[in-house]
């Protein structure tokens, strides 16, 4: 699904990621954990296609395609979903119009007929119910006037509607109280599927108490310094990030 080989990334000539390797197979959940400044957000930005980040070396393959050759929107249309740490507010644009544009783009890319407005609304309402969100959630403006938790749930709703092959969720638990973390985790578990991979990027272990990863990686100083199973989470909780070098 995703194959990252000896990736080296810099921002304004400053090296942020180096010698980073990662392989994610279909259906797997990988947690990437690390302290502040480890390069977690840089990894998300590079995968999303943010051109403020320069890939100096290495390669990234996604679903058999060279990701680094693809435009931002091509990546999305190939089935990559990015859940942002700070979802951007777009006042004036309703979630339903936003998702309609995204679904129409997806249908076009797959050479399918454009879904009707009724079909789109039906699908969105169904996913809203599935995730237990307020029934009028689709009328809200994209991320505007939403609480931190609601913004993260809005990201999950988008993921539910767009049905990606791979979702990269950057600190979807940050800034949330424990009840909101539980709610986000419960909903994320509902979105697991045998052919869908998820990369959870996080500073804290607490969301991993509710979403069980198959693999855990520790990202520190721009590279992965330890990899293992869920037991690594307990080790980080007990001794922190200082034990890894």
């Amino acid at each position: 699904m995703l194959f990252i080989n000896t990736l080296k990334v810099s921002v304004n000539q400053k090296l942020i990621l180096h010698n980073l390797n990662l392989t994610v197979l279909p259906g797997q959940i990988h947690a990437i954990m690390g302290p502040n400044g480890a390069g977690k957000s840089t990894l998300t930005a590079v995968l999303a296609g943010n051109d403020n980040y320069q890939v100096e070396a290495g390669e990234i393959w996604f679903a058999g395609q060279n990701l680094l050759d693809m435009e931002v929107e091509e990546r999305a249309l190939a089935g990559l979903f990015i859940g942002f740490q700070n979802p951007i507010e777009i006042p004036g644009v309703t979630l339903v119009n936003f998702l309609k544009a995204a679904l129409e783009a997806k249908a076009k890319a797959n050479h399918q007929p454009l879904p009707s407005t009724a079909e789109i609304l039906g699908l969105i309402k169904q996913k809203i119910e599935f995730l237990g969100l307020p029934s009028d959630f689709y009328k809200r403006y994209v991320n505007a006037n939403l609480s931190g938790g609601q913004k993260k749930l809005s990201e999950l709703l988008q993921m539910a509607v767009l049905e990606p092959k791979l979702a990269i969720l950057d600190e979807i638990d940050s800034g949330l109280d424990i009840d909101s973390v539980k709610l986000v985790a419960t909903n994320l578990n509902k979105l697991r599927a045998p052919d869908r991979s998820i990369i959870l990027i996080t500073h804290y272990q607490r969301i991993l108490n509710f979403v069980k990863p198959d693999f855990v990686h520790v990202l520190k100083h721009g590279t992965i310094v330890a990899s293992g199973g869920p037991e690594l989470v307990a080790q980080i909780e007990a001794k922190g990030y200082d034990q890894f070098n």
Partner: protein
Amino acid sequence: MINLIKPEQFEIYNLDWLKPDPEGWLRLDFAQASRRPVWLQTQQSKIKLEVNLQQAIDIKFFWCQLIETQKTQNLQIVFNLKHPNCRLGIYNFYYLVQQQQVSNQLKINHWQPNCQSYTLSKGVLQDQAQAWFSGKIFVDPQAHQTDAKLANHTILLSDEAKMESKPELEIFCDDVKCTHGATIGSLDKQQEFYLQTRGISKEAREELLVLGFLQEFINLTS
């Protein structure tokens, strides 16, 4: 865009039916206390209009300059709040393409105390379109407790489009609240990137964000 606006709840004022005075000024006087919002229309390329509020009334004025209308338009409108306790809303939007040129020159004169005015002019310029906005709030020495706001916001969708905006205050009274502001810029890069990560094409992104930008106006008119 135009079908989002429902003019049936407006009172349509066709300015072309008014007779100008020798200096070319058109005049509209309002004295009735409660009334529907007013939609101003004209086919003229140059208009000088004076609007007088003669009673304590609550009234909103709307007009728009769209692709469908003529190539150039030069509007000069003076609003006179001539009675205490008036509430005035002034709403204008423009969407100009190709070589369209529009100028909106507004003056809001607060002559009496306890009046409020809110002016919002918003628009989008494409291709080589050009627009000018000037808006002046004037507050007379006796217009105590004036509350006046004026804003002009423009999105430029091309490097060749040009906007000039000049909001101004002229205040001769101390206990008043007046604010003005203007923004001119391209679409928000972060918002665009967010839409891009959802697979949305450049054309569809512009359409969505422009619609979002005008939503404030659309909400007021529907």
